[in-house]
């Protein structure tokens, strides 16, 4: 059923054409969330949008159905410009978004949009849809009496009762525990494949590769900072889908590679700068939002496993989602502690040294690597202009936003502080938001 030919002549149910989204944060700095996104949902398909957190997937969903306007570009429904809210759309929210003071059946009734229906018909539809999601007998319950999984069933029932042509699901299972999520995912899969609910198309937002492969007919991989469409893959895994089937595993592998390629490109790594006193700074590029502790943790794991590990094996060892594992690996690579040929992560010489070093020696090792990064040189140059006067954190955030407009400056600043303090480059006082060059005298007892 994935091989439905969608006639090219029929215009898509919803489409974004060249859409940008720019937000201003509290300090008035502009941040680019989405950049030139072309995307469409066609009739009779399940599109899964896959991307790490913060890549603007949810924003894209909201723009597509008219909840928020794009900063640039156009949004269409059935080939016409979208005005107001998409008339055929319904949404299942990550955190359910039920009204706590309405009973289950009243919550579901909300999905009927006060449509004029023959007497008794509304009641019958609510009953039928509640039966379909396995909530018969719970009509009079209130959401707070239900478990998370049952709450999301109500959310799904509310979305389905109006027989939407476009069902949007915004990370629908990620607020649930693993087992409940798996059960619900399987039931939703059945709903999709049986198409008994008048459903035409589904837009699924997810950060889990397996989920995208399990449910999607087409998988769109988004990259972050700013969010752009990186790849589109037609999911050829035949129905019924099984997690352990070779075709399924192959597809997961393929998408793993795509995601890794997007986030960890195999560029020749810059030669390590060893000339003492000379700082070889690369271009100013953003840092993955990863703490030094996580990077060191990765190095320890690698050292334990003989220095080389497959990215997916690391992912399986941690309770991170795949995007986060990649971010940690990428951060370690930026610091020259690892190399990442293909899907492997390999400890480098300086990585080995770092693992062996004592706690007292580590800051110096880290400092050498950190100083090779352009973004640190940028900030240090600014601080060195007047070494006695600390810089306001806001000034630094502005500086970062100016050089890297697509990045969340506050988040980047947080990462910068974390790495810089670990390398004893900076002093930072959060109460006064003041950043200064490290002033502590060399009092490392062991070194």
């Amino acid at each position: 059923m994935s091989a439905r030919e969608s006639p090219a002549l029929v215009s898509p149910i919803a489409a974004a054409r060249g859409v940008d989204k720019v937000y201003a944060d509290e300090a008035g700095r502009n941040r680019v969330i989405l950049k030139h996104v072309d995307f469409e949902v066609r009739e009779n398909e399940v599109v899964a949008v896959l991307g790490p957190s913060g890549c603007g997937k949810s924003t894209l969903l909201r723009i597509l159905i008219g909840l928020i306007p794009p900063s640039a570009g156009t949004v269409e429904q059935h080939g016409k410009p979208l005005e107001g809210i998409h008339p055929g759309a319904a949404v299942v929210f990550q955190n359910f978004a039920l009204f706590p003071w309405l009973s289950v059946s009243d919550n579901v009734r909300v999905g009927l949009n006060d449509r004029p229906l023959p007497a008794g018909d509304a009641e019958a539809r609510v009953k039928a849809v509640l039966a379909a999601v396995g909530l018969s007998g719970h009509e009079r319950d209130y959401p707070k009496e239900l478990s998370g999984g049952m709450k999301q069933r109500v959310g799904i029932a509310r979305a389905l009762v109006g027989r939407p042509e476009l069902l949007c699901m915004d990370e629908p299972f990620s607020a649930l525990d693993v087992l409940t999520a798996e059960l619900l995912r399987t039931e939703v899969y059945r709903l999709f494949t049986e198409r008994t609910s008048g459903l035409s198309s589904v837009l699924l937002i997810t950060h889990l590769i397996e989920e995208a492969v399990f449910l999607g007919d087409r998988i769109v991989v988004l990259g972050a900072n700013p969010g752009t469409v990186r790849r589109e893959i037609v999911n050829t895994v035949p129905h019924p889908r099984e997690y352990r089937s070779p075709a399924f595993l192959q597809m997961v592998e393929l998408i793993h590679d795509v995601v890794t390629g997007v986030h960890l490109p195999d560029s020749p790594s810059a030669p390590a700068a060893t000339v003492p006193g000379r700082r070889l700074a690369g271009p100013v590029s953003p840092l993955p939002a990863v703490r030094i502790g996580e990077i060191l943790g990765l190095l320890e794991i690698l050292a334990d496993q003989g220095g080389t590990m497959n990215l997916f094996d690391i992912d399986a060892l941690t309770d991170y989602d795949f995007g986060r594992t990649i971010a940690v690996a990428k951060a370690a690579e930026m610091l020259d502690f690892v190399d990442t040929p293909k899907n492997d992560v390999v400890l480098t010489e300086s990585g080995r040294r770092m693992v062996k070093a004592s706690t007292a020696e580590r800051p110096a090792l880290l400092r050498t690597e950190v100083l090779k990064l352009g973004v640190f040189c940028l900030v240090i140059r600014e601080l060195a202009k007047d070494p006695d006067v600390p810089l306001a954190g806001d000034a630094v955030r502005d500086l970062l936003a100016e050089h890297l407009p697509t990045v969340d400056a506050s988040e980047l600043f947080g990462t910068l502080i974390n790495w810089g303090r670990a390398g004893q480059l900076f002093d930072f006082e959060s109460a006064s938001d003041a950043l200064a060059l490290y002033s502590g005298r060399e009092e490392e007892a062991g070194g």
Partner: protein
Amino acid sequence: MSRSGKGRVSGLAVDVALFVVLGALVASVVGLAQRWEAPIRQAVEIDLSPSALPLYTLLSLSRGFAAYLLSLAFTLVYGTIAAHGKRAEKVMLPLLDIGQGIPVLGFLPGLVLGMVALFPRTNVGLELACIIMIFTGQVWNMTFSYIGSLRSIPEELHEVARIHRFSFWKRFRIVEVSSSVIGLVWNSMMSMAGGWFFLTVNEAFTLGDRDFRLPGIGSYMAVAIEKGDSRAMAWAIFAMIVMIVACDQLLWRPLVAWSQRFRNADVEGEAAPESWVLNLVRRSAFLRRLRLRRRRRHGAAAPSPVSPPALAETGADTRSARVRTGILVAFGLAALAGALLGAWKLVGLLARVPSGEWVVLVSALGATFLRTLAALALATAWTLPIGILVGRSAVWSRRLQPVVQIVASFPAPMLFPIVTGVLLALRVPFGAIAAVLMFLGAQWYVLFNVLAGASAIPHDLDEAADVYAMKGTARWRKLFVPAVFPFLVTGLVTAAGGAWNASIVAETLTWRGRTLETFGLGSLITKATRDANFPLLTAGVLTMSLALVLLNRLVWRRLYRLAETKYSLNR
């Protein structure tokens, strides 16, 4: 079988009781309306016999409820407008902040004169003036609470309302009011208590040579104090307590218990508030039948009228947006014109204040400021240790909370004569007594907040203090006091506002025929009212408002920030 039979009997009894209460309500409303139509008498003779008290109490209660309905209406309208217009909010929130701080009692003379002029032949003007004064004591925290609730509605709920095309009313009902019910009910309870504070003044006061009086428990107390009739004072206090307890048990407890169904999160563990009255009403056979019928009708709803197609809707949207902007602009212009006119009048009035008076005003401000500080210090001195001790114990705080609430609802000015009598006998100068009187009303705000703070101290911090053998003063210094600090600041801010306002009734007191007075801004304002010296009155009120706003900006804001950054347990 027998159980259901018994249930039916008691259900019937409840029905009878309900009808009796309803009938009494209708009868009293009719009676009150007749009174309002009574020809104006500036000084009603207040009958000091206890038998007159039930009627007086009922009259005061009806004023309180009329003011409350006004507050509720104001809150819903003001809050909705403020929350819907991002630009309107920028003006409306600070306006509310200022309104809360202004010593409203200073406006009483102008209001009364204006209202009496509007309704020269009947008592309506005086009644309205009194109701509006009570309203100004009630409305602020309700409106703040409502706006706060509206702002904390999760964005997804708004999105659901938009996706499923809620009408304005449907959104108002299901999203906005429903999200705010818990906060509104709670603050309504506080507001009713706050509204009684100035009752003795609102119902009976003199302006120049004119004596305005309305029959009510406040004026009863005022006359009793004037005559030094301690038996009548005791009766009035008793009647007030009965009224407060009755309101609490028959109205607020049931409402608080009922409002729990609007609770958002599933915060269990905390015992849900219960009310014996609500439990009774829930057992009412009549109401149950009514509910059932409604549900059945709801089930077989007739088809609603055809909704307009989506395109027309968006057209209407932009049109209504244009209309809304138009209305806002018109309102803005009217407000601006009013403000200009007011400013012009104000300058004219203030110009008539001799420059020597300004010096007196500023030194009076200083005196009252010192008294406020003393009142806050007194309040902190006992509420901080007691509040922490009680708040640490879940059992005690649950037991004491309703009692404290009722005690706190009691209008402190009614106790002023007794406290003054005792302290005078101890040869305390009246200047210091005034500070104690200001403290009487202000202490509860501090206590409530410290209690809340103490019960919010995480258990593991307590355990850590145990493990590291943190004992006695160290535990207080390092754990308890810092942990409740943010709550203490909140309590102090509110208490300070209350103390400033209370100075108007605390710095002057008529006691057994003689007038006690101490130098301060409050007594200056009271004197200006008595002498009908409007320029001085205006200058006094203005000075106090300015001082309050400045203190807020310069002192309290900073303390808030310190509390939020350094002493917050949420980060």
